[in-house]
């Protein structure tokens, strides 16, 4: 990779990380802790919603986030010609 390509690759990586961590923080610190009491007023499938996020929803979101990252980075690696064979 040329230095320009390296810089471009790295910037893309950082932007993915920023977005994924923003979701990570909002579902855990946001929905499950700071706003949990407010969300609890809504009831979903027998669960107060804040409680559901805290005990299940956040974990499921984390799973989605890590697999999304794997897919995004594999695509990025291919695009820049650094995908490992």
């Amino acid at each position: 990779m040329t230095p320009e390509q390296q810089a471009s690759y790295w910037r893309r990586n950082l932007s993915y990380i920023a977005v994924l961590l923003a979701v990570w923080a909002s579902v855990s610190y946001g929905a499950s802790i700071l706003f949990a009491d407010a969300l609890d007023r809504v009831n979903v499938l027998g669960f107060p919603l804040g409680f559901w996020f805290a005990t299940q929803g956040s974990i499921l979101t984390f799973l989605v986030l890590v697999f999304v990252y794997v897919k995004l980075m594999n695509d990025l690696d291919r695009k820049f010609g650094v995908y490992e064979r």
Partner: protein
Amino acid sequence: MGVSAWTWVIVVASFVLYMGIALYTRAKSAVDYYVADRRVNPVLNGMATGTDWMSAASFMSMAGLVAVMGRDGSAYLMGWTGGYVLLAVLLAPYLRKYGKYTVPQFVGDRYYSSAARVVALFCAIAISFTYVAGQMRGVGIVLARFLGTSIEQGVVVGAVIVFLYAVLGGMKGITYTQVAQYVVLIAGYLIPAIFMSMMLTGSAVPPLGMGGTLTREGAALLGAERGQHLLEVLNRISLDLGFPAFTAGWKTRLDVVAITAALMVGTAGLPHIIIRFFTVPKIRDARSSAAWALVFIAVLYTTAPAVAVFARATSVATVHGRLAADAPEWFRNWEGTKLVGFQDRDGDGRMRMSADPARNEVTIDPDVLVLANPEITRLPPWVVALVAAGALGAALSTAAGLLLVIAAGVAHDLVKSVLFPRMTDKAELLGARIVALSAAALAAWFGLHPPGRVAEVVAYAFGLAASSFFPVILAGIFWKRATKEGAIAAMISGILFTAGYIAFFKILRPDLDGPRHWLLGISPEGIGSVGMLLAFAVIVGVSLATAAPPREVQELVASLRYPREAHDAGGPSAGRRTFR
């Protein structure tokens, strides 16, 4: 066959299986011993990492904590899963690109200093021993209850077993043994949970059953009506005892945020987890391995709150208000371990539970709820035995991973690189095994004198990792300007601050241990987040005040960011030529 006999059979069979795998895959070289020859399939590696991750704390303690803490217990659920997102995006692929053997080695190379390497080694040892102390206590509890040994005998037996297969197999043996242990562990956790879910709410999927409505049998057991929501009934039970509602939060928000953050960040700073990403063939395998690890962990972690809800509801319902002479069988079985007890304060012969410590007559150690669950709901003895085997598998697998970090660290980072650089591969291997032996003995000692409950002790280890390794490794990867003075100062200040705070409130002045005297109302379990912020501030401040790192180091940092240079023939194997 009774519970004891079944437990002997299943536990011994599982031990034979683990030893067999360790023998079959035993390490023959240093690269085998430290990183399993870098050839582990990422899905299997994820499963092994998950098992290494899920210790006695996850298996036994966590559901117990959620049971007694209500929604605030989710700090542990989120803390111990959310960290994998951090690992996957912030650490795993870059450290795999670096590709050597241990975390202190990375710190030493990145910060161009053997002093930094040794400081990192001491941090790793402090973290790992704290963590392993909790495991050995877990092992002692299980063996004491189910095999009738004393807790002391149980701890010693556990230490011997761990030593044998960690020492024989090294990382390779541990990895494949952990795959087997996952199967035992998850079966031991899910089967009772599924039974209980079906019995109480008719759903075979515990996370859904948690939100479900009571069956006739469940309603009878809990003294409620059929068709009521289980969570509503549990909330009512909590309120009746004088506790807040189960699904509400009790601690201050700041403390819950601090605990969650300390656990998440600590996850990404644990040396025995970080090295699990050195064992896969490619950088992209490191990312997917982190993802797969979370899948296998999530299976247990989404079930845990359900187990907590079931256990809390049924343990209270079968005990509160009962005549002591008529105590349920599970209660009497566990009284012998002294982890469950009754003290007739009001002299009426009935067991009353209360949120008010002065009136409460019944104590149930949260660490035993998961193990007691199948007995509370009268499941067959082989299920009880399977749970015991699962708990043991969880504790031993983690203890093995920790011992390996300690052994590898001392042998590789201290003895070989600092003391005897001309040591041969074989001598290093022998040295690592000797260190593992001493570490196992010391771990057993800690198991006999534990500083607290399993999950609490483990949480302290996380706080130490969050305030020492995480900031220094993260800065090492993402900030070229981080210097060796900054790293050393950050590790020392972070870990001393956190360890000091914990020691003050838990050992020196436990009488002051409460929200009134805590810094900003943050508990010792959460203080690691503050330690982390302190360490970040120190590494930034001190780095900017000292000379920039040499150019080779800045190039090393840059090269960590790309899976391979486009002109190379392949990935990390090409990198290996450059870095070694």
